């Protein structure tokens, strides 16, 4: 009797359902607020520090560094947001109601990922551009600033904003795989930071050889004005940045239909 429902309509229904779920929780607004406001404040502070006298004799600081630092902070709060969209449903048993209403589990995974993607893309870009504006306002006083009209700058800032989206997708996937909030967040921190920490501890040239495959190094490469020369190019690094969430979501898509809810 209801067999003639086009796939597009069904997809829209599942998306709308997950959108209602996301926006009907206060915790969504709190985590987003923290993810947006704090990093902007941090980047202003970082810019002030950068504008001060150099602490060591090394290469000159990258003028886009403050924006990057601030986003790495936001990575933690969008991680919580991403992990919990699945883990709280598994934790409470609500996932059974969800899957009874929408037996196509991969559609649920896709819809949850999509609504979180939309929110984190907007938040990420907002943070990236706001941080950039604020930091450059501080740096320009010291003639260290760059402007959006300079070649390479808009792309780097845009790419910087993508970081939140990329890690949020990893978080959604891990929430579906691990099915538990505490475990999911632990796995998230491990997946994102552990490879970079290992790379950091390796001796040259292995640090860079391993490091270029890590998400943290890739995120830096795509969002700095003067990317490191011993890592992948920004274009390849962008691919690395997107390959991580793609891999995690793929594993989630496989496991979500294989296990009992």
């Amino acid at each position: 009797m209801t067999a003639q429902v086009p796939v597009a309509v069904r997809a829209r229904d599942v998306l709308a359902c997950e959108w209602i779920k996301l926006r009907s929780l206060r915790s969504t607004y709190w985590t987003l607020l923290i993810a947006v406001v704090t990093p902007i404040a941090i980047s202003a502070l970082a810019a002030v520090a950068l504008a001060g006298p150099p602490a060591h004799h090394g290469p000159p600081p990258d003028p886009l560094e403050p924006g990057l630092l601030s986003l790495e902070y936001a990575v933690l709060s969008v991680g919580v947001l991403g992990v919990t969209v699945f883990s709280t449903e598994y934790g409470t048993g609500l996932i059974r109601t969800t899957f009874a209403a929408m037996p196509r589990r991969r559609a649920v995974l896709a819809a949850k990922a999509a609504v979180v993607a939309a929110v984190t893309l907007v938040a990420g870009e907002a943070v990236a551009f706001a941080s950039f504006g604020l930091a450059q306002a501080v740096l320009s006083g010291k003639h260290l600033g760059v402007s959006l009209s300079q070649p390479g700058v808009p792309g780097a800032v845009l790419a910087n904003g993508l970081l939140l989206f990329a890690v949020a997708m990893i978080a959604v996937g891990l929430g579906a795989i691990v099915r538990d909030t505490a475990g999911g967040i632990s796995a998230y921190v491990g997946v994102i930071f552990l490879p970079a920490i290992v790379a950091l501890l390796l001796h040259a040239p292995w640090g860079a050889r391993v490091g270029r495959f890590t998400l943290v190094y890739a995120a830096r490469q795509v969002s700095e004005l003067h990317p490191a020369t011993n890592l992948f190019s920004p274009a390849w690094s962008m691919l690395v940045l997107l390959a991580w969430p793609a891999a995690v979501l793929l594993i989630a898509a496989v496991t979500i239909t294989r296990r009992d809810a």
Partner: protein
Amino acid sequence: MIEVDHLVKRFGAVTAVDGLSFTVRPGHVTGFLGPNGAGKTTTMRVILGLDAPTAGSATVNGQSYTALVRPLRQVGTLLDATALHGGRSAVAHVASIARSNGIGRRRVAEVLQLTGLEAVANRRVKGFSLGMKQRLGIAVALLGDPQVLMFDEPVNGLDTEGIAWIRQLLKALAADGRTILVSSHLMSEMAQTADRLIVIGRGRLIADTTTAELIESSTRRDVMVRSPRAAELAELIGARRATVKREEDGALAVAGLDAAAIGDLAAEHGIAVHALIPRTASLEEAYMDLTGESVDFRAARPQAALEGAASR
């Protein structure tokens, strides 16, 4: 219609459902009865496609549940009323699920009104009592106005008024020609609500019959007789091919001969009878007889437990 066909579900070494087959037909409230751990919830989860069967199959209206498009319009379910996100309001919870099956806001308001929750619709569900959560779960089950409804232990946590409300609702839904499957571990509850019963124990079918038939067939009936010449009387009754058991206090428990026949027999032989009482086992006892063998975790008899404690 719900059809379960030779269903097997194992979790590692544990067999939760062991070759179960039954059919739930429209127009009745069918009780799904069994002790805790009998496999009722697992069976329901398999019917809903939440758990994959190890063997066998379960279908709803002839289709596998996972193949249903907009399943809530065909099957409504309440599995676990507490399975909610506490931070979400009642109306947001119902609206999100409604939206997933293309069901509009008007129907959301309708089911909230039907379940008496419209006054608390905007409150977050973490403050809800178990009874309110049950109502909320029923509201979700009714959303798509489905022909098939499945409720897992819906009266748990409800007060007397709530239980009466559910009973009326279930009967009204069945009278509408819908297929209703309600699980419970309480025979007394099911006897008042269900007109058909599927009884399972340890994942196996024990009985699939009408409630009246089950009560009739599984109820123990006997006559308690007291007499100063009990031994003599017992012999006479035994000669009539009835069974006689001597109880601890010297009374006779007679099965297979009714009170009138026993009285006549005693009078014929001039034996005085001090008591002649027909007895029927309660429904609950009948149910325990039926499922006694299949209870997984049996508690010690209260008396034995107390004695054990005292002697320590």
